[in-house]
């Protein structure tokens, strides 16, 4: 099923940031979201993930099909890597975690407490979580932060494998992942302010 | 003019004084903040319409 976004308008802190935004994400495709800092990429991804309501517009085909990964990974430092992954696998009612450990080379770390991991290792664990969700659409916000070159390669491989299985991915990132992905530049969709001298229910 | 309040003079007078004081304070604070905010809004609106 395709993720279709039409005429979307979103606000951050009550101020409209993007409007008239639309795209379609087919299975097997990846879409890279680009745009300057502060334009509302994170807000866009959170809106698509269903964490916040849009000002206007429709998002179709997202319900219960999205695995979201934001700036923080939701990792419990007192649990081991295996326990963290097992928990998310159980929450999503998904298959085992071995594939996820393989994909990000986490076997050696499996019994370490997540609190003892380096930032990059934690990030790998956070990305491994996506594999145990079993969800077809990945919505990723700056997934490669604190990853080294090798780990970025692993991440790209994992995304490629995901796309190969008919999944899709929506990624906000600044680096080139080497994926055959379309690019969505959100710059042109910046919301145009209304005139100052009039205001209505939204105070703007 | 002043009515004889008997032995409860203090009680009655103090409750009137305290209550009226609180009411006056409430009204005064409301008006003060209202004026301030109104002036500030007009200033902001002017500045922003000038700057576009």
């Amino acid at each position: 099923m395709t993720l279709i976004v039409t005429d979307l308008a979103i606000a951050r802190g009550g101020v409209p940031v993007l409007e008239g935004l639309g795209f379609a994400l087919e299975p097997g495709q990846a879409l890279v979201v680009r745009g300057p800092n502060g334009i509302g990429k994170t807000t866009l991804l959170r809106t698509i993930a269903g964490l916040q309501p849009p000002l206007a517009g429709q998002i179709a085909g997202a319900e219960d099909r999205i695995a979201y990964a934001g700036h923080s990974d939701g990792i419990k430092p007192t649990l081991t890597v295996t326990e963290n992954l097992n928990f998310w696998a159980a929450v999503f009612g998904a298959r085992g975690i071995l594939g996820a450990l393989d994909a990000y080379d986490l076997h050696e770390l499996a019994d370490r407490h997540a609190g003892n991991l380096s930032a990059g290792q934690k990030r790998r664990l956070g990305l491994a979580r996506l594999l145990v969700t079993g969800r077809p659409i990945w919505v990723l916000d700056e997934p490669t932060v604190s990853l080294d070159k090798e780990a970025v390669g692993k991440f790209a491989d994992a995304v490629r494998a995901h796309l190969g299985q008919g999944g899709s991915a929506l990624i906000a990132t600044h680096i080139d992942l080497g994926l055959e992905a379309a690019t969505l530049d959100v710059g042109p969709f910046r919301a145009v302010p209304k005139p100052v001298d009039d205001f209505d229910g939204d105070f703007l | 003019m002043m009515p004889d309040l008997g032995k409860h003079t203090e009680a009655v007078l103090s409750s009137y004084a305290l209550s009226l004081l609180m009411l006056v304070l409430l009204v005064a604070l409301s008006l003060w903040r209202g004026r301030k905010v109104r002036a500030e809004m007009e200033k902001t609106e002017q500045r922003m319409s000038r700057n576009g």
Partner: protein
Amino acid sequence: MSIAAKANTIWQYANPKKFLATSERVLPFFWATAAICLVVGLVWGFFFTPDDFRQGSTVKIIYLHVPSALMAINCWLMMLVTSLVWLVRRHHVSALAARAAAPIGVVMTLIALVTGAIWGQPMWGTWWAWDPRLTSFLILFLFYLGYIALWEAIEDPDTAADLTSVLCLVGSVFAILSRYAVNFWNQGLHQGASVMRAGAVTGTDTTEKVSNVFFYPLFLCIIGFVLLFIALVLYRTGTEIRARRIRALLARERAGA
């Protein structure tokens, strides 16, 4: 957001501009009538009513105590209604009206508590008793404080409006529960208060004529408190709307820069 702009519906005042214009027009009327009712009612009550034979001159406190206690509860009711309107119809003015009303409720509750304590001292021989009615007002006071503190603590105004509205709803249910619980816990000294039978309040109750002596000025004071409350709410809601507008403008300026 589309504004329900049909003429002759109350929802047109959900538009902040319309609200400001209308409230500006009617406010002088409310200020004036509130002042007249309060001055006449209080002067009448203070200077021209007889002492109660049992409570002496303390009966004069009734002209402040009963209206403020009534308004303390009615203010919460008004906040409950406007909170519901905000949650269901998403009219910002409604949420801001609830925010504007809360401090008035605090003052009303305080007046009721203070006058009650001052009145209780000569009557019951104590400033404070854990009487159900007093206790309930103390709990109401805590609810008001929590409600205001929550508004103040949250940065984003829409989030704050949502959270305080839910708190107001849940708080209302618990306030009723507390009232019942407190009654169960202590049967109390306070007389049954039915303001509409002023005779019962004074405890004399011999003839209709005696109670009327107290009732007319009391009634005037209640009207005066209601009008003052309306005037304050309208005025303060206007202030909140403007503060909100400043916020929105500044936020937009930052976003644009």
